[in-house]
């Protein structure tokens, strides 16, 4: 290989990966439109696009269906998928664990516990802040779970397999705590908690969408600022530290970000599994591990999977919307097991 061709060849690979990233964007746009168009009543494409540009072109009923039901639902699928995909990718890098994700390490379950606490004891807070107490509690418990995982890994010098086992233990602990909260909850609160445990986009509101959007807008640039440090982390902790990267601080900052992303996603959409695991793996296969492309790719892949799952949740049983957490779990478990088999040499 000649002197010039090595750099040129790499730039070709990089351009090809950029093209794949663009295809992901297009696929997500298409999936989003299909998600909005499908449901108990189908929007023809022309009518849908007209309704999006000019809401007054639709009759009152269709306008309500499009703007108050379909759009919040479809946008929430994209945002929550992106948040979970990004969170999973960052976790896998800083914990050097291909099986790490908010769901597999109990972070989502912890957030669901925080959310259920906020629901049950929400009456204690002023009405004006009650919309924010659920995501805030979800974030706090998710962050606490991240810190527990980190502390256990450090204390016992745990390898990848042990971290997953700690995560499974946390899932059981938080499941038990959620059951305890359910046990003492009033009937109304109990119904809401059950919604969280199944994972559903059905209650998405524009206000919630604004909160998730803000979180993504704040978190994503911070993630992208650290892409070179995160890329260097893939060469091992010792190598990263010798490059001047404050490994411990980076890990703490990233886990804080993961807690915010997972907390807000779980607070509004419930416990949706496997997106944070599968999204990054798809991105890794398609785009490699250069984090300049891997991080946005993971967010896009997560968004695309959840958007497709949203379509599937409406299409599997005509007239019925299955909670999306059930769909992602049914698709995610075989994928998760495939990953374990493929990654067994690293565990």
């Amino acid at each position, binding site marked *: *290989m000649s002197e010039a061709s090595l750099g040129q060849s790499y730039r070709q690979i990089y351009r090809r990966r950029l093209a794949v990233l663009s295809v992901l964007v297009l696929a997500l746009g298409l999936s989003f439109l299909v998600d909005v168009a499908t449901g108990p009543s189908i929007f023809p494409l022309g009518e849908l696009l007209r309704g999006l540009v000019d809401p007054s072109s639709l009759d009152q009923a269709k306008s309500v269906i499009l703007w108050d039901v379909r759009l919040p639902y479809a946008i929430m699928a994209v945002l929550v998928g992106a948040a979970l995909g990004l969170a999973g990718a960052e976790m896998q890098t800083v914990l050097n664990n291909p099986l790490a994700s908010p769901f597999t390490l109990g972070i989502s379950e912890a957030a669901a516990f925080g959310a259920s606490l906020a629901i049950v004891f929400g009456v204690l807070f002023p009405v004006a802040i009650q919309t924010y107490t659920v995501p805030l509690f979800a974030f706090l418990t998710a962050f606490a779970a991240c810190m527990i995982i980190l502390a256990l890994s450090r204390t016992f010098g745990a390898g990848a397999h042990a971290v997953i086992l700690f995560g499974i233990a946390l899932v059981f602990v938080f499941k038990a705590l959620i059951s305890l909260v359910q046990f003492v909850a009033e009937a109304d609160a109990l119904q809401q908690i059950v919604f969280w445990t199944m994972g559903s986009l059905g209650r998405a509101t524009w206000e919630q969408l604004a909160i998730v959007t803000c979180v993504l807008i704040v978190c994503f640039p911070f993630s992208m600022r650290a892409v070179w440090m995160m*890329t260097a982390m893939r060469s091992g902790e010792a190598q990263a530290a010798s490059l001047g990267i404050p490994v411990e601080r980076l890990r703490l900052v990233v886990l804080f970000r993961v807690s915010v992303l997972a907390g807000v996603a779980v607070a509004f959409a419930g416990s949706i599994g496997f997106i944070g695991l599968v999204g990054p793996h798809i991105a890794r296969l398609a785009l490699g591990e250069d984090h300049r492309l891997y991080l946005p790719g993971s967010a896009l892949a997560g968004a695309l999977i959840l958007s497709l799952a949203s379509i599937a949740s409406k299409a599997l049983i005509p007239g019925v919307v299955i909670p999306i957490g059930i769909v992602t779990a049914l698709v995610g478990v075989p994928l998760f097991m495939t990953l374990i088999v493929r990654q067994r040499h690293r565990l």
Partner: protein
Amino acid sequence: MSEGLRIRDVSAGYGPRRVLHDITLPQLQPGTITAVVGPNAAGKSTFMKVLAGLLPSGGEIVLNGEAYLQRSPSARAKLVGYLPQSIPAGSGLLAYESVLGAYRMTSGSQDAEPVERVFRMLDLENVALRPVSELSGGKRQLVGLAQVLVREPRLLLLDEPTSALDLRWQIEVLRIVREAVEQRDAVALVCVHDINLAMRFCDMVAVLSEGRLLAAGPPSQAITSETLKTGWQVEARIENCSLGYPVVLADEPVRGETVVPMP
């Protein structure tokens, strides 16, 4: 100004466990390679981590008149290149990306030429665009070395850079390291298990045993039958080969005395 590396009374450990005890070496001159040798668990890797600033330590460590460990980690990374003992096998980064990342992190430069040059130097061009996880242990080790060399550090700390390499590349690596230190008046410390390699290709040898310095100096002074007996617990002879270089010939483990247990 290049004065080399001064190491005096260096002690370090992990928590309450002290691993290194008052290590003092003769001044390591610019443009030289010093081999750090010793039996298993002698503290060689800990010593390298201390010099790389990855482990807190006591004592005096001064490079070209500056206590560089006082610098911020990112400023220190511009001076010191450290190759850890093991390179993770699971990285999905392309070899080229892993070296490019190391270069960008320390130089901030967009120039790709130094990256390409180091791949040529280590004859890695054919594997440059393959994921690190698909490379053999030897090639991975060379990619790790490329990550160090591309930064053109003034202090090279290489922890067993030849352990996975064949005979030719063990020699090639030490030749390339010599070129690098001579060109930039840098100092290199290299942990190796092969004492003959150390004696043949390094300017100085430091022998560690149980966290203490057993001997240090030019190879023929540092490696003696007595050092080998005390440090490695082996009866050995040192003879000259046909080219006049000293060669260690190990005969048998020392009998009737406490043998340092293998970890």
